[in-house]
């Protein structure tokens, strides 16, 4: 055993860093254990250091702290804790020694295994990392044990590891920090042995894992992009056109330049940038600009006009997405009840608490950038291209984002491009922080698409005989690098996902779509297509089941013969809420909905009453099946947050436009859910041995239709046009 380890050491020494990098590049796993922690102590590894710290996922310091470099952005959804849990489980670390930081930008080392580039989205962090990060932990464990075995001169197999302590029956024991340097000389095991799930001590366990970022996010020390400050840094605020597609015709910056603190004013492709010493002078300077806009290519339609156009289109057949049986024949048969419903979904802003922003320092040959980017690789490439430097000379350090909900994952890389253009216009040498105001963020586009669903159903003999759904909406992905991945037969699948595959057995089925062009930029918004398809399908099936005389839960279950996981969460939530037997207070009603998104199944029951101001949701019960549950408490937190986020939007949120101008600019007109409107929530995580899937988005879709279905129980029409409380925005 000893000899083998010595041989291993010799072999390892023969490998140069460069060849390790090459070898590691093709593998999904890799471990770098810092020799003395200095590299990390000086800050996160810069781009230059990546070349000499191959496959960096793990840094073990002499003080026994184990830092996991998280390839996914921590924007609240919990990957710092999630990745660290996976590593710590296989490493047999003590949770108290675990830390996390963002990985630097490197598409080879830190790619999302589902995307092929470094990026976070589609609730994929745990799903794509589950095995990879466990292997990182398992490999590190083997290397540390081998190092201890060599030092103690004992067989590695006799060493046990528990809570971060390696022990040998002879009485020898030690912690990771003391062996990190020696372990680092060993080759990385290609296929380290993973635990059987029955041996898990952290994954799926209650109360043993706490979020790694709670303390710094409670005492004000967590650093966000807005908090970046460097000597001689300028803050840039940009005046952008009031209509999408308009451009600068001419501008007068004399008043802006005369203001104290304003350093310069430059035209950039997205508008006119004011550079100043600090945010306030930059904003005052921006407000003092006199700009004439060229609106000849601008989108000038308002949302009412769009609605009229969409509504007209929805009455004609779109391009077929899926057809089964013969809906028309079923409609023509006598004796059936034909039910029709039109659902209208408004544009929605993501409005993360931290408005968009980014930091850049172009030093001529190199670029240093820091901000909360969901897509570091495409952003890095955009910056490199605009500033004319090779991509490997662009360091993009991801930092905490103050929320995102999809907004910081930009298929058009528009913020990265604007950031680089702002630097380019100023010339190299100046650190610059680009800041969007709340109004810039709210009126800056990239919304959840406006869409219309026209549904038709036939109920006969107590059964849903036919179902059709005609969707009118914009494509999110058209013209983006994701088009090839998401388009099918010329249609953007993210616009109809959830409508084409309903979980119910209906023999005659049709889903078709009109993909329309509108000059308003749109983007994925927490749960993407499911934000509207989940509502349309679940409100409509409830209406059809009501017409068929069925109970909302039992009726759904009867139609779920091919959908055991949908049925599983539905049964679980019905039991949790005591659906069958619960006695409700006067004036209260319950509704249910179940939606699968991103491979995760969520069912919710709401209990509400009606007030003069609109629906008051008292309580929500939620059952989630996300496969193996890695961090149960984070899953619960994401369900709670998803419910609150979804509820606020279906009740209040709307981004109306008049003549192409966005009406709401801030939270006074774009109403956000507040604490007094937040229901009590009870979550159950369904036990599963399926592979893990995400939880960042799937909590959102069911809440809207569950509310609609409860309102129906109070004798109201299920809301056909969102938001439910009209006029809350604008």
């Amino acid at each position, binding site marked *: 055993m000893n000899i083998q380890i010595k041989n291993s050491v010799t072999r390892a020494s023969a490998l140069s860093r460069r060849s390790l990098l090459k070898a590691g590049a093709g593998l999904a796993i890799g471990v770098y254990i810092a020799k003395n922690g200095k590299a990390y102590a000086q800050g996160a590894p810069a781009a230059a250091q990546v070349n000499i710290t191959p496959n960096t996922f793990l840094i073990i310091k002499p003080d026994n702290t184990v830092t996991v470099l998280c390839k996914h952005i921590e924007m609240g959804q919990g990957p710092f804790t999630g990745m660290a849990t996976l590593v710590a489980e296989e490493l047999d670390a003590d949770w108290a020694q675990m830390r996390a930081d963002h990985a630097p930008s490197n598409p080879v080392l830190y790619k999302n295994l589902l995307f092929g580039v470094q990026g976070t989205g589609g609730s994929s962090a745990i799903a794509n990392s589950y095995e990879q990060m466990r292997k990182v932990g398992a490999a590190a464990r083997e290397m540390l044990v081998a190092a201890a075995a060599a030092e103690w001169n004992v067989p590695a197999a006799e060493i046990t590891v528990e809570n971060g302590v390696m022990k040998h029956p002879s009485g020898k024991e030690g912690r990771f920090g003391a062996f990190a340097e020696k372990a680092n000389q060993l080759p990385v095991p290609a296929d380290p042995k993973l635990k059987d799930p029955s041996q898990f001590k952290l994954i799926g366990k209650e109360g043993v894992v706490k979020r790694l970022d709670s303390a710094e996010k409670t005492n*004000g020390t967590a650093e966000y992009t807005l908090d970046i400050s460097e000597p001689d840094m300028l803050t840039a605020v940009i005046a952008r056109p009031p209509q999408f597609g308009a451009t600068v015709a001419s501008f007068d910056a004399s008043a802006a330049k005369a203001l104290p*603190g304003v350093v310069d004013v430059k035209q950039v492709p997205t508008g006119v940038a004011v550079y100043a010493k600090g945010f306030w002078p930059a904003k005052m300077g921006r407000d003092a600009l006199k700009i004439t806009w060229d609106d000849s290519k601008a989108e000038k339609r308002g949302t009412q006009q769009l609605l009229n156009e969409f509504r007209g289109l929805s009455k004609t057949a779109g391009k077929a997405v899926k057809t089964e049986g013969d809906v028309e024949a079923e409609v023509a048969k006598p004796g059936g009840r034909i039910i029709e419903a039109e659902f209208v979904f408004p544009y929605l802003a993501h409005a993360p608490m931290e*408005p968009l922003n980014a930091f850049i320092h172009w030093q001529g040959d190199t670029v240093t950038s820091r901000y909360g980017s969901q897509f570091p690789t495409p952003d890095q490439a955009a910056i490199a291209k605009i500033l004319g430097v090779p991509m490997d000379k662009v360091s993009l350090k991801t930092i905490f984002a103050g929320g995102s909900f999809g907004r910081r994952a930009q298929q058009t890389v528009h913020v990265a491009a604007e950031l680089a253009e702002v630097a380019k216009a100023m010339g190299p040498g100046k650190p610059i922080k680009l800041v969007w105001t709340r109004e810039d963020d709210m009126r800056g586009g990239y919304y959840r698409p406006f869409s219309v669903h026209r549904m038709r159903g036939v109920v006969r003999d107590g059964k849903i005989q036919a179902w059709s759904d005609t969707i009118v909406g914009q494509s999110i992905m058209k013209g983006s690098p994701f088009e090839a991945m998401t388009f099918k037969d010329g249609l953007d699948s993210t616009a109809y996902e959830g409508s084409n595959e309903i979980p119910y057995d209906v023999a005659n089925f049709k889903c078709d779509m009109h993909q329309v062009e509108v000059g308003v930029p749109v983007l994925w918004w927490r749960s993407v297509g499911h934000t509207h398809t989940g509502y349309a399908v679940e409100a409509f099936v409830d209406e059809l089941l009501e017409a068929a005389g069925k109970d909302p839960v039992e009726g759904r279950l009867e139609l779920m013969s091919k959908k055991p996981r949908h049925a599983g969460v539905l049964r679980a939530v019905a039991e949790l809420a005591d659906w069958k037997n619960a006695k409700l207070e006067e004036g209260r009603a319950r509704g249910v909905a179940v939606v699968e998104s991103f491979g995760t199944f969520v069912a919710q029951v709401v209990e509400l009453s009606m007030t003069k101001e609109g629906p008051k949701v008292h309580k929500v019960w939620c059952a989630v099946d996300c496969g193996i549950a890695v961090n149960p408490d984070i899953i619960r937190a994401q369900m709670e947050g998803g419910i609150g986020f979804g509820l606020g939007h279906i009740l209040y949120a709307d981004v109306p436009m008049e003549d192409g101008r966005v009406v709401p600019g801030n939270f006074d007109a774009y109403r956000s859910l507040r604490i007094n409107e937040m229901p009590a929530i009870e979550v159950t995580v369904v036990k599963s041995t399926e592979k893990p899937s995400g939880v960042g988005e799937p909590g959102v879709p069911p809440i809207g239709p569950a509310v609609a279905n409860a309102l129906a129980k109070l004798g109201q029409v299920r809301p056909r046009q969102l938001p439910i409380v009209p006029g809350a925005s604008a």
Partner: protein
Amino acid sequence: MAAFVLKINGGEHRVDVDPQTPLLWAIRDGAGLMGTKYGCGVAQCGACTVHVDGQPMRSCSLPVSAVGTSEITTIEGVKSREAKAVQKAWVALDVPQCGYCQSGQVMSATSLLELNPKPTDEDIDLAMNGNICRCATYVRIRAAIHDAAKSLEG
């Protein structure tokens, strides 16, 4: 531009800014204290909440020239018994998600407990509904305030 001497967290900070500059930006870009956040600029979201002479205020909507000699406390300097209990409960329940609004939430919750050691749910609604959390961590904020209140008993 004008020079103002602000009393922040027991120390004095000289900031040289336009008199209309909101206190928020004097605290952040002037005094360099970054824990207090910008979320809306119009006193709608509460991310910028600080204590001015012990009272919770939206620093984004208070001109620096109106502050005078008032004592300003930010998240970096809040040290009362109530503040410590709030922060401890926040961590124990893993309240934060993105965390960006939480400085403001902690400042508002601390003020609430300083005035009302045993708040009801309705008291919490009234005191906290000026603080938006887009992650909707409200269930845990409410629970953490109750836990903090409990920990301060006796």
